[in-house]
């Protein structure tokens, strides 16, 4: 198992506000501090509206914080970059490109396609899509499209892989398969990975640490270490204990503001 040297993330006093159409200001994140070590697998879990997607978007550089900053390996994050690859719940493959060209997109816009051509096929193979290079996105199933999106992000060798509920739209079997694939890829590549999820089991099954977030004021309520050896089984007593604990924290976090959450 590879552990990368790079991909060290720090969040310092993050604050992000949104102005709603009616003029009201909503605090999406407030006073958030966090540290993510190179090669770690982190899950963000919490009820809707707890700011976990905002956390991820700030980390991706798609929005900028109102106060505080994210740093990656000591450098402040100000803009989106290929160093932080992002996969959404919706695969958002470019429908006008074949799977091959979708995966090659990052290399092409960075003008390193000719040197790194081989990577495209390697990553297509890594996610198990060999034979579908010439297919168009609409010809793929949801799980296959998500694999392609993963390959597209990984081909850039990002320091950090950001996943925003990547398996949320998949059926239960596909989801479990994809979780295993993701762990396999993460163990092979050792890329620091930050995932937003609604699924407590998924968070425990995949992560080194779980950030449990609470809404309004949105912040990190609790950080839990998952001290279960890999490969993990979903019915181990430690697994179940941790799950009960997270549910309890979430329940508490949710009830305080009377907000609905999803498991």
């Amino acid at each position, binding site marked *: 198992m590879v552990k990368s040297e790079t991909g060290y993330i720090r969040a310092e006093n993050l604050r992000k506000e949104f102005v709603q159409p009616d003029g009201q200001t909503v605090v999406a994140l407030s006073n958030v501090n966090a540290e993510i070590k190179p090669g770690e697998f982190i899950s963000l879990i919490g009820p809707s509206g707890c700011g976990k997607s905002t956390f991820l978007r700030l980390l*991706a*550089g*798609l929005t900028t914080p109102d106060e505080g900053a994210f740093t990656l390996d000591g450098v402040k994050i100000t*803009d*989106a*970059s*290929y160093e*932080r*690859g*992002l996969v*959404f719940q*919706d695969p*958002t493959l*470019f*429908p*006008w*490109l*074949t799977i091959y060209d979708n995966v090659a*997109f*990052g290399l*092409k*816009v*960075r003008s390193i396609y000719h040197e790194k051509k081989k990577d495209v096929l390697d990553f297509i193979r890594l996610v198990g899509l060999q034979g579908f290079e010439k297919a*168009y*996105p*609409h*010809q793929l199933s949801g799980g296959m499209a998500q694999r392609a999106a993963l390959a*597209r*992000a990984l081909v*850039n060798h990002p320091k950090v892989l*950001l996943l925003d509920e990547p398996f949320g739209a998949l059926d239960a079997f596909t989801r479990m398969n994809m979780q295993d694939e993701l762990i396999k890829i993460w163990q092979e590549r050792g890329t620091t990975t930050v995932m937003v999820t609604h699924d407590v089991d998924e968070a425990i099954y995949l992560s080194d640490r779980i950030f449990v977030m609470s809404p309004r004021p949105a912040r990190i309520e609790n950080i839990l270490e998952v001290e279960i050896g890999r490969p993990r089984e979903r019915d181990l007593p430690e697994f179940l204990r941790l799950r009960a604990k997270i549910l309890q924290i979430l329940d508490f976090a949710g009830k305080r503001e009377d907000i609905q959450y999803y498991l």
Partner: protein
Amino acid sequence: MEKIAVQSELNPEHKKKPVFDVRTLLPALSALLALLINVLVPNSPKYVQKPLPYFTIALIAIIGITLVFAVLSLFFENLRKRVAFKSWFIAAFILLLNILNIATIKLMLLQPIYFPNPDKILKVYVDDGAFILKCLGYSLRLLFTGFFIGALAGLTTGILVGWSRKWSYWVNPLIKIIGPIPATAWVPIALVTFPTTFTASTFLIALAVWFPTTVLTSSGISNVQNSYFEVSSTLGAKALHKIFKVALPASMPMIFIGLFNGTGASFITLMTAEMMGVKFGVGWYINWQKDMLSYANVYAGLIVIAVTFSLLITLLFRVRDKVLVWQKGVIKW
């Protein structure tokens, strides 16, 4: 399914055995009927000119060609299906020619100056075909020049307006005011502004193509899902990549709608321009022949235009299908 298909291909007898579909003979029968009427029914006594052989020759050629297709259809299943499917329409079309022939030369039901018989229209091609082709060349040169300038300008303004707020602020109102004016309304101004009628007409056609291309390109680009841009920026794309590698391909379906509208507008403008003074195009030819009351030539010109324009539209459809191959099964229009 696949296995069955493979088996039938492996079975040579299944493939070789000729299959007859009676529908494949319909066009030939319809043409035969027209031929018999043309040859056996005497011309109207009011028709005093020398009889011409062209319609008879054309019908014999049609019978020959349709029979060849009918025979080939015996052996090739795909061809048979296509020929059988189209046969009713083709037969009806030949019947229409037949009726036209009866109504003109046989019964003289229609005013012969304005509604010439098929023989006379065919004679125009024999006598004047080379000149009509030359006219067509002039028309196409004007059409293509104007179309490409207009499409290019339309794409450019469409991208700028769809992409940048500043451009949208300054240019959008202009598009809204200038765009809806039919290009032909500019004729008086264009004629005095440009040195030649050719450049004036090029401008008018370009203007006609520019408007729909601009509007649909810009609305296509401003409607591209934001997540495509977000994902592309996390993959390393910069602004120019986002325009040319994301926004533009994502709006291609809309751009093609604009180009189709523009093509239609360019045909209208071309004809108007030629009828108003641009020399030697098919539109000019039609107008000229109309003034000389040679209606057979007018029809001959109209047929050339119909065939050419529908070929051009078909060509554009082919290009679209090629460019938008990724849309197959997603959107159809």
